């Protein structure tokens, strides 16, 4: 096996081989990087934010004109009209700066993930705001597998509640995923509106979360890393699932998934107990946790540092599972037979009081937070739960790619602290609001 294959020997004629090599030289330049792109870093952020006020491609031209570049990046997308851009701008060809792809301008750093840095950016093609996820190549292992899985899954997913991957830009050192820009994420939104969200908004967010989950589960994709940070929110209130780095197509049963997925707080008890075969019900548990967290303004099981502690917190609410309530539970690796000393289960609204204030919310939450994975409600079933009957009926007939907010009268209500902030603004103009 340790061999160099000589396909040449199978060649019918030798001359043919030489010809083909000459012909191929352009399509696979050996020793040449895939695409060498000049950098374009926006040195002056102030300048950029000025140009953003006149939010039009021409408005950016002043900024761009001084940026020097020679080549366009290799782009996989044909969704943008690159020709228009080429004609629209002057491209200078000296003093190449160093760095990023030229179709997009980096504006500011939004965050840093495990394998990527995310920037806010502007598309030079249509002037839209974008999020640029810049993935640096690992010199040992090449393109991170999370990036490969995320992109290959997102290529097949088109839904109003799934973040849209516009474009992929290859450069020598990095790979940039160009996503639609979203205003904030649910974690930030909740921290900006402490004390729990408006019940009306919780319903809209939850409906969108379940809509996105139902869609990916139908495509047999598991997200596997649901948490408020991964749910992006637009200024309208559109919610989109993002960060599919741990997601995978779930149709492959031959392999057991690593149980090291899903942030501890949102991890279901079956995964905590060491089960390695799990399916869409994994995401449902996480969605249930997020559901209650939106009401309460607090994570359900915060401050937990290890798996056993997390399990005990869960048992305190749900009660300890038995073979009757959960067939096969005692055979899971982390099962502890001494758990029967734990207290009896509680109604969820006793533990989390704000659940009781909204009709049917507790029932939906309890169907999502079942210990036994098979007993959990599916995303598709949850969407038709009584809890959502207060929503306009058109929402249940929307095509996949249509947002909830295309239906008239569907909008977020102001959160309590927004009202407070506007009150303060009127009465104490000096005090600035942290809420948006």
């Amino acid at each position: 096996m340790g061999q160099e294959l000589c396909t040449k020997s199978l060649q019918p004629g030798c001359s043919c081989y030489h010809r083909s090599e000459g012909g191929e030289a352009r399509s696979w330049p050996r020793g040449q990087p895939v695409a060498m792109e000049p950098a374009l870093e926006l040195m002056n952020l102030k300048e950029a934010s000025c140009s953003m006020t006149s939010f039009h491609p021409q408005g950016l031209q002043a900024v761009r004109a001084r940026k020097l570049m020679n080549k366009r990046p290799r782009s996989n997308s044909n969704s943008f009209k690159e020709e228009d851009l080429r004609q629209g701008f002057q491209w200078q060809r000296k003093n190449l700066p160093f760095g990023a792809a030229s179709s997009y301008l980096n504006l500011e750093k939004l965050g840093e993930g495990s394998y990527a840095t995310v920037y806010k950016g502007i598309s030079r093609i249509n002037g839209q705001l974008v999020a640029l996820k810049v993935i640096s190549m690992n010199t040992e292992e090449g393109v991170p597998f999370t990036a490969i899985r995320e992109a290959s899954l997102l290529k097949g997913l088109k839904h109003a509640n799934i973040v849209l991957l516009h474009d992929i830009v290859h450069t020598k050192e990095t790979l940039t995923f160009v996503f639609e820009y979203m205003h904030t994420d649910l974690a930030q939104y909740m921290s900006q509106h402490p004390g729990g969200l408006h019940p009306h908004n919780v319903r809209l967010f939850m409906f969108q979360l379940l809509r996105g989950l139902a869609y990916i589960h139908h495509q047999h994709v598991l997200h596997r890393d649901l948490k408020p940070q991964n749910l992006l929110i637009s200024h309208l209130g559109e919610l989109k699932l993002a960060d599919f780095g741990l997601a995978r197509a779930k149709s492959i049963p031959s392999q057991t998934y690593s149980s090291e997925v899903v942030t501890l707080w949102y991890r279901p008890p079956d995964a905590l107990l060491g089960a390695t075969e799990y399916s869409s019900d994994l995401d449902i548990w996480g969605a249930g946790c997020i559901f209650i967290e939106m009401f309460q303004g607090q994570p359900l099981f915060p401050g937990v540092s290890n798996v056993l502690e997390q399990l005990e917190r869960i048992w305190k609410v749900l009660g300890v599972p038995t073979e009757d309530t959960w067939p096969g539970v005692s055979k899971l690796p982390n099962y502890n037979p001494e758990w029967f000393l734990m207290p009896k289960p509680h109604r969820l609204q006793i533990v989390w009081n704000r659940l009781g204030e909204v009709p049917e919310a507790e029932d939906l939450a309890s169907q999502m937070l079942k210990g036994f994975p098979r007993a959990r409600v599916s995303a598709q079933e949850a969407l038709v739960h009584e809890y959502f009957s207060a929503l306009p009926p058109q929402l249940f007939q929307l095509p996949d790619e249509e947002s909830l907010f295309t239906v008239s009268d569907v909008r977020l209500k102001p959160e309590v602290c927004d009202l407070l902030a506007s009150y303060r603004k009127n009465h104490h103009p000096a005090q600035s609001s942290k809420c948006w």
Partner: protein
Amino acid sequence: MLGPSSSFNPKSPSASVADGVAAGMSVSPGRRERPPQPCAPPGLEEALSALGLEGEREYAGDIFAEVMVCRALPGRALPRTVTPEMRALVVDWLVQVHEYLGLAGDTLYLAVHLLDSYLRAGRVRLRRLQLLGVACLFLACKMEECVLPEPASLCLLSAGSFSRAELLRAERRILSRLDFRLHHPGPLLCLGLLAALAGSRPQVVLLATYFLELSLLEAEAAEWEPGRRAAAALSLAHRVLDGADSRPEPALYSPAELDPLEPCMVRAALRGPAPGRAAVFLKYARPQRQGTSLAAALLLRHPQPGPP
């Protein structure tokens, strides 16, 4: 509360998705334009359970539709510079590397699928065919495996004919040419599903897996939908072991649809360990695979009259 039994209801909306009749959110836009397809047969949920996918009963119809009707690669199979023999040589070597590294079955099918997709999408330098093959395997590992093989060991297995940097560059080139569209439910899951539906014996499944893997060596196999390819392997295995009249039930494809696929599997099984195409034969001759390839060659030469 919905108990687990309620999802067995055959009239549940998701089970009918394979007919393409359900409307609204339960059907993805991509699914509508697909060609006519085998309907989700009764017993599908149980078959999924047998595969350890009981959590997906709800989406059984979707999964079935997705994996069984996954489209084959269109167009001409190979660029003019690459002959079927060259392709077979590379695939044969990939089978060896795959077995040596102890990778999952799906990884091999995905690697060969990526290789075929790449070859269809443009030209390739012949000297680089082995590098291309191993880069496809590396990418398939990144999609499927929990533990990745070291790039350095992949270079070693090719006797140092390329460097790690070249391997990583090839990886980028494949991603770029295939536009990151790597997701492909391969024929192995189809085979598992079909065998569970038909209640095939383990021995039959093993033989069918062997036939299916032999088809990897054939360039034309990429033009067959994974579902049809798996059904052909299973049907052939049933007839070889249980006599000429036995075909797996339910028959999702007609014999006319399956028969054209079988000769190449029979040919390859009868050929034995031919130079440059021996890896699959030798792999299935090992005791842990019960000498399947030896038995298959024998049975194909001297067909058994009926079930044992």
